């Protein structure tokens, strides 16, 4: 089969990580991978190389613009945006995992391979409107994640978290599949945008089965976004998984699912006006529930990872508010928010690694006084927390600002007020982390632990944390560049919404 250059161009970002994913297990065949340094180096090198190459390639592609679609693949700027987004998250996760696995005392090449598979699936998921590709993409990124969550074999909770994630995820996938099948059945087309046109042409936009199909599709997306009430796997899965994987999941899964949601609902289903309206109505309710549940529950957590999990749920709520506003500018804001969110959350999870917290020792008490011991990490932690809380001049503020602005502009003042109240509550638990880092003296127990613990060497994780901090700050000071130069162009090209 001969592929034109542009088709290669569209495919390469997927092929490169997939290749890497296939290569790494070969290296991992050796039993002594934990001890043989060069094998470990080779695996991480391959993974980073794959991610880096794909990233480099995508950034080049970004400059040339969107590629004509072929097969089911639409490598437009939105897809490229997603690719870059996911790859950055993956790169950060890989770097952090070097230190994390080192601290945990085990290394598995398979994890890296699974991560790369997941990356491939995510890029595919966000760059297609064809249901077959969409479903395969979904599964390709989900199944490795199920495995990755349950992969910390030393921990009892790990397989439990993986099992929960798997079972709920499988149910959600089935719903998603059923929804797609119904849409296909009513339209005769597996491509969702084509299907939407057909349905509209046949006047079936309000047919109950079409609506059911759309609703079930939405369930699939909302599960991945971890919006309430499809959110309950989130804290358990995050707690169970290794820190870098949790970070990666919190960022990439959510981001990709939202972008795909954007592509399908406002994008492909645009012609079906009623579906969009109903989607907004549902999302409005769910976003509020998500905000309330996520923030309230985060308030009472003692484990930082669970707190971050609930915080990620509440951030799903903010992001969904952008869908409620439903204007191009709001989508624009969502993309911008995602970029900052990537840095904030990868950084926050990276902090755990950088501070050398392993296993279940990730409670607030374990963090006490660490901010002063590792000032650079502490400052970065403060930046992440303040940004998550939406305090200017951090980047997180601008994300919220853009979304709330559109929310208010479209007359949803009440929801905006709920949103800001939720972020007030959230400020409290983010401050708790700062309290632990800076405002509390290390407890005697923590001191003892700190002295018992082997010297924490997490240079890579530390570096990723600093990079994330820089991105968050850049989001606060170069917001125009990020928002207009990046997010906006992705939207223009991807959804044709902003002209």
């Amino acid at each position: 089969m001969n592929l034109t250059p542009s088709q290669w161009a569209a495919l390469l970002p997927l092929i490169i990580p997939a290749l890497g994913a296939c290569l790494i297990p070969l290296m991992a065949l050796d039993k002594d991978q934990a001890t043989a340094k060069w094998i470990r180096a080779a695996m991480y090198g391959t993974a980073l190389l794959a991610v880096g190459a794909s990233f480099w390639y995508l950034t080049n592609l970004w400059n040339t613009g969107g590629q004509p679609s072929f097969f089911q693949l639409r490598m437009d700027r939105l897809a490229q945006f997603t690719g870059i987004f996911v790859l950055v998250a993956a790169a950060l996760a890989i770097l952090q995992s070097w230190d994390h696995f080192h601290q945990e005392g085990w290394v598995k090449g398979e994890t890296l391979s699974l991560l790369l598979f997941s990356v491939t699936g995510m890029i595919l998921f966000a760059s297609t409107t064809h249901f077959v590709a969409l479903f395969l993409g979904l599964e390709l990124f989900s199944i490795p994640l199920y495995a990755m969550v349950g992969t910390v074999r030393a921990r009892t909770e790990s397989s439990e978290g993986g099992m929960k994630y798997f079972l709920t995820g499988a149910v959600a996938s089935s719903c998603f599949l059923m929804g797609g099948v119904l849409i296909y059945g009513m339209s005769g087309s597996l491509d969702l945008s084509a299907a939407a046109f057909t349905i509209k042409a046949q006047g079936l936009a309000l047919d109950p089965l079409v609506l059911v199909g759309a609703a079930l599709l939405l369930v699939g997306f909302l599960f991945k976004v971890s919006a309430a009430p499809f959110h309950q796997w989130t804290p358990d899965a995050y707690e169970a998984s290794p820190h870098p994987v949790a970070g990666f999941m919190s960022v990439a899964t959510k981001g990709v699912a939202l972008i795909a949601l954007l592509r399908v609902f406002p994008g492909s289903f645009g012609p079906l006006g009623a579906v969009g309206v109903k989607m907004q109505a549902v999302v409005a309710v769910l976003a509020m529930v998500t905000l309330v549940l996520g923030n309230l529950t985060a308030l009472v957590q003692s484990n930082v990872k669970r707190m971050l999990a609930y915080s990620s749920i509440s951030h799903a709520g903010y992001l969904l508010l952008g869908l409620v506003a439903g204007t191009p500018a709001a989508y624009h804001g969502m993309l911008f928010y995602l970029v900052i969110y990537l840095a904030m959350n990868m950084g926050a999870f990276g902090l755990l690694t950088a501070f050398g917290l392993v296993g279940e020792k990730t409670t607030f008490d374990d963090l006490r006084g660490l901010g002063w011991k590792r000032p650079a990490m502490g400052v970065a932690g403060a930046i992440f927390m303040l940004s998550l809380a939406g305090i200017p001049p951090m980047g997180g503020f601008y994300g919220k600002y853009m979304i709330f602005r559109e929310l208010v502009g479209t007359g949803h003042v009440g929801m905006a007020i709920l949103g800001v109240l939720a972020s007030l509550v959230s400020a409290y638990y983010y401050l708790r982390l700062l309290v632990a880092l800076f405002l509390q003296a290390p407890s005697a127990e923590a001191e003892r632990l700190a002295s018992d613990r082997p010297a924490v060497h997490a240079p890579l994780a530390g570096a990723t944390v600093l990079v994330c901090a820089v991105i968050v700050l850049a989001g606060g000071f170069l917001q125009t560049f990020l928002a207009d130069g990046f997010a906006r162009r992705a939207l223009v090209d991807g959804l044709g919404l902003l002209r």
Partner: protein
Amino acid sequence: MNKYYWLIPILPLLGSAFNGLLGKRAGKGAVTVVGLGVILGSLLLATSAFFAMKGMPDHRLVLNYGEWMATGSLSVPFGLAIDPLSGTMMLVITGIGFLIHLYSVGYMHEDEGYYRFFCYLNLFVFFMLTLVLGSSLVLMFVGWEGVGLCSYLLIGYFYETDFAPDAGLKAFLTNRVGDLGVAIGMMVLFAAFGTLTVSDVLTQAGHMAPEVGFGVLTFATLMLFFGATGKSAQLPLYLWLPDAMAGPTPVSALIHAATMVTSGIYMICRLAPVFTLAPITMEVVAWVGGATALFAATIGLVQRDIKKVLAYSTVSQLGYMFLGLGASGFAAGFFHVFTHAWFKALLFLGAGSVIHAMHHEQDLFKMGGLKTKTKITFITMFAGTIAIMGFPGTSGFFSKDEILYLAFLKSPALWVIGVIGACCTSFYMWRLMALTFWGEPRDHHAYDHAHESPLTMTLPLMVLALGSLFWGFWGVPEAFGGHFAVGEWLKPALTYGQTHAAHGHHEGPAVLLAVISTTLGLGFGFLGWKTFKNGPASELAFAAKFPFLHNLLLNKYYVDEGVELYLLRPTRWFGNLLWKLFDVILIDGVGVNLPGALTRVFGDFTALLQTGRVRNYALSMALGTAVLLYVFLK
């Protein structure tokens, strides 16, 4: 000389600054020189200014030194206004002030805080002059509050004791209560006249008709009068003055007898044209004055502390002054300020001299027989006593008689009250004299060491004694063949073109009234002397016989206790209530922390939803799906 008149108040300020900042290092000599020098300089300049004012065609000298605070329609200049009223007052302050400074050199000689004392004293003169000379009501208020401050500092001068700081605090706060009245009064006047410059206000007021019934000016003047009751220790705000005796004696003489306490009278005279427009206020002023005169006099009858007696006497005499003012006798009231300044300063300094001689013993019952030991003090105090009791020809006679006469014209009841008060005054003054100077010494140790005070202390006594005896001839009323010169002199300052104010000659049995009151006064004086000539035994007997009455008077009608019980304690209780109940429990607790806690409780509740069982998760997803389907199909 004109261009140096700003130094009149500023010189004492400079002296105060010098004494306060450098006095400790400079030594007592320098402090004395500077402290007295500035007052003397001020006195000389004041004299010059007085004559300059006299030379002006309308007897008014206004000097402006630029804007103080101006914004919007409000404009307050730094300005001095010298007219007969303020000019006379200025001379009294600098003159008597100088004498008392001189006296203090001796009295305070051994005190460690000598420099501090002169710093405060100078500062007081500065504020008092500002009060008197200020061209606007606001500047007057500056002095008004400033003298309050100095009084506070001087009363609390012996700060290491328990009592003095309390007395100072009481004085300041009581005065502040009155100051609220002044502040409100000023606001009303500003809203009414659009200016607070005294001459502008008075010029406008001079061209108005009196208010019938209750109105703006009545309210304003009542408020101002309320302020005056604070500063001049009238009912109901007189409480601080007796306690103020905790300060050094020269302070009692200067501030709490001669000058500061009369500033309430001064203010009313200053604003006489406005007060004249408010007949209701005048009525109130007269009755409050009369009531205070009698009330304080009765308390004075049984006090044992020599300074306390004089303090109540002061309150009482101030009451007479207000009585005079209220009877439209502005000049008469003011005249009494003068004469009172002479004899009360004299009496206080004399008492100070006695205390000095007795090594800080202030209890009358422990004195006695000092007649021979401290001759000059005895003679001068004798002069002061006959002046205050109104012995014909002395200064007190003329001023008090004029007031009583005017009171009779207003209402005979007021006259009766006044006469009873005068009788009490004679009685307790002679009680004081008899217990101090006559009889056997009751504390032999103190008596043996008693000695006459140094010249710096006795010289002022002599000067003041002369004033007490003869100053009254400045204001011999018409009834006794004079023409009430002081009234004529002050008239331009008091009327401001007001024509309807009744200052004309009234018919009345002037001579008869004077004879009655004087006779009674002398009689009671003699009675007082007679009773206590040989010691306090008869009073003790009286106390044993009528314990309730005696205790009531001795404890000043229990007003202090009442204030503590019914005003201060409830206020503190209320403050505590506001803090503990409102602030901590209601606003902070219910308003702030409760929502926070509730949020956490909700959080605990929502955390329960996370059961950890995957079936429950799936169920919630299924429920969510059902909701989604419902909304989509609706």
